[in-house]
């Protein structure tokens, strides 16, 4: 999706370069949503406090096929450019996982929450796993304080989102109970490797980097939980057959060329 297109969010239950060092499927899928030949991708590692290892993993995955940069809110970036200039020139913004409570509080302190809403409106693709996914919804389930608890998000997307449904199973009952009790709106839970693609506020597609992983939709109806499993489309070998919005051939070729030039 080029800038200027529909607001787009790719919300991952887990996975991507931080969790799947040998499986680029979700990262490739994110890049396929951006039409620019060399997409500008900004990494926001705020939720984990900008750890070096996570930043290095981002560059390891993205610098070969994108103009990759990161924005630290803890270390000086040595630039006098405003946050608005940095954020709004991107094609995609990748938000890393970590503490959702810290993420939202620190974004608000820097005014970055409002900039990201503007970025979304302008069609800059927003993506991320875990805290970097839940933050876009009305509510999520965080372990920022230790045990899982419900937390409010930015509310760009309607409903709630719970992550690591298979990898951290202690979150799911907290989420389901909160949905059933009406403390948070119904929504989705996603396994590690599963991502939901939203165009505007509409959930359009569910994809997965791993076979067997799934998403779950849950709603409270008259005090009872109604839930159903959503089978994702498996990314990778079967992707073309499933009609993925893959990058056009010429764009792929250019990315390969740049990749080769960087290696040289």
């Amino acid at each position, binding site marked *: 999706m080029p800038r200027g297109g529909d607001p787009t969010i790719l919300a991952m239950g887990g996975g991507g370069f931080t969790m799947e060092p040998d499986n680029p499927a979700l990262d490739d899928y994110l890049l396929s949503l951006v039409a620019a030949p060399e997409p500008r991708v900004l990494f926001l590692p705020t939720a984990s406090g900008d750890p070096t290892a996570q930043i290095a993993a981002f560059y390891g995955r993205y610098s070969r096929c994108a103009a990759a940069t990161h924005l630290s*809110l*803890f270390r000086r970036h040595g630039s006098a450019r405003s946050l608005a200039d940095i954020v709004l020139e991107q094609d995609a913004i990748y938000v890393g996982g970590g503490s959702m409570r*810290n993420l939202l509080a620190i974004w608000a*302190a820097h005014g970055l929450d409002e900039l990201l809403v503007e970025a979304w409106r302008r069609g800059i693709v927003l993506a991320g796993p875990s805290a970097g996914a839940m933050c876009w919804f009305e509510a999520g389930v965080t372990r920022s*304080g230790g045990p899982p608890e419900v937390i409010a998000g930015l509310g760009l997307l309607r409903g709630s989102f719970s992550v690591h449904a298979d990898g951290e199973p202690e979150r799911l009952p907290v989420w389901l109970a909160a949905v059933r009790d009406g403390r948070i709106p119904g929504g989705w839970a996603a396994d590690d490797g599963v991502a939901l693609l939203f165009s505007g506020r509409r959930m359009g597609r569910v994809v997965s980097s791993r076979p067997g992983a799934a998403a779950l939709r849950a709603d409270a109806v008259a005090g009872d939980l109604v839930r159903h499993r959503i089978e994702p489309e498996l990314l990778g070998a079967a992707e073309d057959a499933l009609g993925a919005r893959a990058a056009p051939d010429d764009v792929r070729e250019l990315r390969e060329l740049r990749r080769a030039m960087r290696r040289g």
Partner: protein
Amino acid sequence: MSQTRPPQIVAFGGGGFSMEAGNPLLDDYVLSLAGRERPRVCFVPTASGDADHYIVRFYRTFAARCDATHISLFRRDRSAGSVDGDLEAHLLAQDVVYVGGGSVVSLLGAWRAHGLDRVLKAAWRRGVVLCGLSAGSLCWFSEAVTAFHGPPTVVRGLGLLPFSNCVHYDGEPARRAEYRRFVGDGVRPGFAAEDGAALHFVGRELRRVVSSRPRARAYRVEPAGGEVVETPLATSFLGQTQLAAA
């Protein structure tokens, strides 16, 4: 912990273990205020995003002679050696709380989200010595000059000390001019400290200025007669005076 200790803050313009390897003077000074042979010292590295290397350096410096602990606000789901459970009880039981440098804006945002602003205020009232450098100095004041992203701006701190504060006063020439301009434009009067200089407050009164470097200085910056006046403060060098002459 004695209930009779007064509130104390030692605000470094820069320095201590994270900036002055091999020069323990400012850290020693803070420990001397604890009134205990083996003080309980808790490190709060929030402003750095709980950077691992920073935490390791803290323990290297303090673990041998203190009961050293740290608090992480980013890894509470997997404690990784940090204090988990009741942060409030832990902080209130300390002799010294040592706040590391980094971004004061991120620091304050995260503290407020976890209620640490309230807890640290209570700790201060109980006589837990609060100290820190850079962001760990700025946070205690009502207004703080930060230049983390883009040009210098003024942010609201916790307000335990009803002044403004500017750190690294010697490090960046632009800061000096900006701070004076801010004070001229209505930011409350305050204190600027160079790297190696520390402002020691008892209650809300400046008790003493100490330094780990012979030439490090601190200043009172305030409007007077239509302009902003910068007054150097008497500073006690904590090292050997022979070194100062050398």
